[in-house]
């Protein structure tokens, strides 16, 4: 029997800058080519293009000049998806994700990061770019060459264990595009 997953196990907590009607957020659907499942709240995605009906398509992580978007909700949440297999088909919700755009200024706290690393104040962070890896879209301070690797944030308060007993990383959103290829 799998261990129950709690609503705070995978989450994004905006510490500063949101909730506001003037906050920069962006909505779209996960690109059909993405096999990472689920893409949790707190992970990073970028807009990779638009569907034939004009709906933004999201892919996990970011690189090159792709603007990072920090997900407020994940594909496993009931206001995004309500999968029923052959037993039911949900009319609402319709698969839309939304997130905070990384070129705006927020202080965020996420559960979706490489917990094996040590994080120093002001360190640069990037998000793993992959359409299939289990850690796609998670934050890490590893293998970052400034101005080559695309950066999405800098560490603020750092790593801690929150009131729910879950490991989190706090950071300020800060987008620095890199010269690496955009994929």
């Amino acid at each position, binding site marked *: 029997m799998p261990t*129950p*997953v*709690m*609503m705070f196990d995978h989450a994004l907590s905006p510490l500063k800058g949101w909730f506001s*009607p003037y906050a920069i957020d962006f909505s779209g659907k996960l690109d059909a080519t993405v096999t990472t499942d689920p893409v949790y709240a707190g992970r990073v995605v970028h807009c990779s293009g638009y569907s034939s009906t004009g709906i933004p398509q999201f892919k996990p992580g970011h690189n090159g000049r792709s603007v990072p978007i920090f997900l407020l909700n994940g594909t496993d*949440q*009931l*206001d*995004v998806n*309500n999968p*029923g297999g*052959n*037993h*039911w*088909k*949900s*009319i*609402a*919700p*319709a698969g*839309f994700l939304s997130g905070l755009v990384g070129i705006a200024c927020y202080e965020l706290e996420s559960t979706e990061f490489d917990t094996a690393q040590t994080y120093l104040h002001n360190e640069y962070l990037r998000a793993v770019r992959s359409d299939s890896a289990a850690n796609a879209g998670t934050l890490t301070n590893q293998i970052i060459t400034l101005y080559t690797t695309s950066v999405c944030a800098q560490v603020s308060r750092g790593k801690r264990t929150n009131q729910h007993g879950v490991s989190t990383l706090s950071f300020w959103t800060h987008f620095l595009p890199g010269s690496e290829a955009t994929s």
Partner: protein
Amino acid sequence: MPNPRMESQMLNEAIFEQLSTPGQEKQAADAINEFTRTTMREDGVYRKVIPPLTITPDDLDRQYDTDKPSKIIDKEPGNPPAVSLPFGTLPVNTYILGPRYRVSFDRIVSPRFVKDVVELQTWSMDIRQVMSDNAIKDMLTEEDSKFFATTNTAMGGSQGATNPTTGVVQWQAISGGVSRNSLEEAKKIMPRTPFHLEAVTAIVNNVTIKDVEKWGRDEMGGDFSQDLVKQGWSEKNFLGLNFIITIKRDLVPDDSMFMYADPKFIGKNFNLEDTTMYIKKEAYMVEFFAYQCSGGAIGHSGGLARADFT
């Protein structure tokens, strides 16, 4: 052949007549200032197929792993069949188990309209009212968009696909154009499933229905054909179905007909927050947007059918 010069002259004469008649100045002014509309909008179709039920927070079912609202709905279980037995034999046991499905919710919102109030004063029409009325109709269109997309998915996702729940192709191509024969063939789709349902509601668009207006006397059966030629289509009941004609041709394509059983055989449509208009005025800036929270699911795909007439 229309004569624009004569029509314009008649309009001008009508306006001058109103201007010169005491008390008619305002009517003339209204006629001059009445704004020109550009787009036809209609009420929602989804709400006519599955009427919405208001649900309160007390009706929601709590989940341990999320605080997002959801509602669990029981579904009729299947029964093993009755059998014949000789004497001295007891029937086999069947432990009672049954299916349920989950309805979850999201928000539909209009754009957030913003304006300096001074600039609003230069409009002769009430632009705020026009935009908010249109925004609410656009929200109903968003509901319809999700409903038809889910209908197509529940039937198997494409024309000719077998519905894995029923084992029947419920989205079929039917040759012969839009004729009495082809419409009756379309009505046969739903009863072919193991659930023996009959279509109660049919939806076509406002282009497709014009092919029905072409039916001659022998195809239509009597004077109704003459009435259609004179007055156009206005029927709500036809072929034993409640007919809904929609202008949303992007959702209900030309030469396609969606059919639905009684809503109790299809699913649920819940309203958690009814359509609400948020308005805020700060100094000389006004902003407003509309929002609603609703949920829906198709719990049983046996009550759906679609015919594409070729």
